[in-house]
């Protein structure tokens, strides 16, 4: 196991080489929508349009970043893929070699065995390192659960007891996320760890199942800037080593570029732009991406840059703007923008935007 700091190959750079030779797809969303009904008598029948017509493909071994501000629907996207809620319409296809047509289609809420085997393949990392560990359990207990639920305790030899085998695996796991010496961490409670350490435990728990797809929902946004990069490196190292597919959700365009081969930009529940990281960041085509790009701090580009100016806030998702959802804030707004929703069109090969421009 390579630790992030000592890494022989540099995952961030090596992934640049693999940008376009995406071989197999593992997950595909086909115009998936998620509407949350409002539980209120007066507003009966109204819904929150958290996700509308979202389609994208995740390749095997690929890191795909989902970028957007709060309320853009990025967390909802991860949650529906993780089967935390059923989707409203559309279909989620997960590659499945055992199935006759090569994939498993999910359009309703799974349950029982089906759900368990789905979850074995798709796992989520949550944003809040403080909230995602149960304060009443020890790290040992927390980390041993995935092994017990998914029956992953492996005995080295006949003589080894199950308990000892589990302990050995846990120690190995902690070492792999850089929490050393492991014995010291096993008996601790979450509140005795720092934010960064907790997030490492979280990530370790997710990886222990060895899922094929990891949905990471802003895993570093609540951490100090100085710790973020090492967590990002660690996830990359894992991903690289096990060839997992990664959906990396963030609001930070620079972080997305660092992690991912391709970027999906979402706004108010819809995909605005999708393309390779460099295309999206360096040659942003959608006005919203341009706005994000110009708002992000980038000291390396010189001090006091000229910015794109917009006004207004993120729109209500109960009554989303007609036509393009970005039109009320768009500096290049045209007449047709408020009437019809622009389709996702390709500007270059593999680079599409939802804009009339």
């Amino acid at each position, binding site marked *: 196991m390579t630790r992030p*700091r000592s*890494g022989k190959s*540099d995952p*961030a*750079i090596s992934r*640049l080489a693999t940008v376009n030779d995406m071989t197999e797809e593992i997950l595909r969303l086909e115009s998936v929508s998620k509407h949350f009904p409002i539980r209120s008598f007066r507003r009966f029948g109204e819904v929150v349009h958290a996700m509308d017509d979202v389609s994208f493909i995740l390749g095997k071994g690929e890191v795909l970043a989902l970028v957007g*501000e*709060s309320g853009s629907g990025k967390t909802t996207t991860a949650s529906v893929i993780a089967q935390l809620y059923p989707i409203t319409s559309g279909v989620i296809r997960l590659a499945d070699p055992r199935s006759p047509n090569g994939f498993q289609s999910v359009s309703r809420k799974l349950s029982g065995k089906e759900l368990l085997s789905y979850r074995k393949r798709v796992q989520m990392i949550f944003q809040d390192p403080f909230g995602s560990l149960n304060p009443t359990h020890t790290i040992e207990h927390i980390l041993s659960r995935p092994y017990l639920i998914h029956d992953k305790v492996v005995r080295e030899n006949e003589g080894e007891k199950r308990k000892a085998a589990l302990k050995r695996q846990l120690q190995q796991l902690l070492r792999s996320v850089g929490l050393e010496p492991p014995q010291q961490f096993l008996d601790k409670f979450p509140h005795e760890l*720092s934010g*960064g*350490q907790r997030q490492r435990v979280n990530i370790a728990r997710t990886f222990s199942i060895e899922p094929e797809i990891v949905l990471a929902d802003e895993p570093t946004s609540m951490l*100090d*800037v*100085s*710790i*973020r*990069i*090492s967590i*990002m*490196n660690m996830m990359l190292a894992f991903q690289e080593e096990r060839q997992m597919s990664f959906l990396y959700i963030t*609001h*930070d*365009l*620079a*972080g997305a*570029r*660092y992690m991912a081969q391709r970027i999906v930009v979402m706004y108010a529940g819809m995909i605005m732009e999708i393309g390779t990281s460099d295309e999206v*960041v*360096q040659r942003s085509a959608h006005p919203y991406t341009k*706005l*994000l*790009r*110009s*708002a*992000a*701090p*980038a*000291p*390396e*580009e010189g*001090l*006091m*840059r000229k*910015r794109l*100016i*917009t*006004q207004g*806030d*993120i729109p209500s998702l109960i009554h989303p703007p007609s036509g393009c959802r970005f039109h009320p804030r768009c500096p290049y707004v045209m007449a047709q923008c408020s009437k019809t929703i622009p389709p996702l069109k390709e500007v270059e090969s593999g680079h599409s935007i939802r804009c009339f421009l």
Partner: protein
Amino acid sequence: MKETLPESILECQDLVAGYELKAGFVRAVDGVSFALKRGEFLGIAGESGCGKTTLAYAVMRLFRDNAKIKSGKILFGGKDITHAPEEEIKKLRWEHISMVFQSAMNALNPVLQIGEQLTDGWLAHKRGEVREAKARALEVLKLVDIPEDRYNAYPHQLSGGMKQRVMIAMALMLQPEVIILDEPTTALDVVVQRTIIEKIQELRKTFRFSVIFITHDLSLLVEISDLLAIMYAGKIVEYGPASEVFYNPVHPYTRGLMASFPTLSGPIVRMGGIEGKPPDLIDPPSGCRFYPRCPDRHDGCDRDTPPLRQVRPGHFAACDGE
């Protein structure tokens, strides 16, 4: 920077402040000195728990409960206010130094209208009548691009970005010489964050007040500050003109911070960040406090506390390494 410059409006000299706990005194701010000139923009960066918020509260003398200033001096306009009586401080606050707090969500009283919260400070400082107060409030709301009709709104009727702009308007009410901004944009989205920062810059240029901007996100500060101070474990470890600190960082901690945020342009470079966690401030390590995490440490780092030394004109760093 020990010598007092005549035009410096706010100055801290060897300030020690923190919290009295059962386990001992937490030296959250430990020997901090800086001088802020009129109209200057000082950025203070450091990870959470480095004492930057305590520093802001100490300067405002806003300590409650077990927090206190242990030693050192705070000078405002050349006058020592470290132990000035509460009545005097009360007059100083808001009139001369105001502050924008971290969480705009909780910084506004939910049951009072925006207008009332804007005017009550003004009235408390006896600047005039209610009618004039309202006129002034509408004026500052306009400065931060908030429509007049929001004067009678309650905080929950505003979005996060608007609340933060109201807080800035509130800080501007009495035209103070210094405004302290404590992580004013942390909870906000990138686009809103940018709007707020641009607004602050614009207002500063118009009204020539000084700003102390505190954040953990160094990448923000570099673009907007004149002066940059990097804080670690209660101490300022590097201090100097922003571009100087950014292009020629000296302290290993500063360099670590610089290597902590990926860039938007240029080749994707593998970065290291900073491993480990900050020390316990009740019982800090001897010598340089960054020593346990420092990649360039050498013998002696754990013995002597390196003083701030000038590496280039106006650029100081507390490290004796190369």
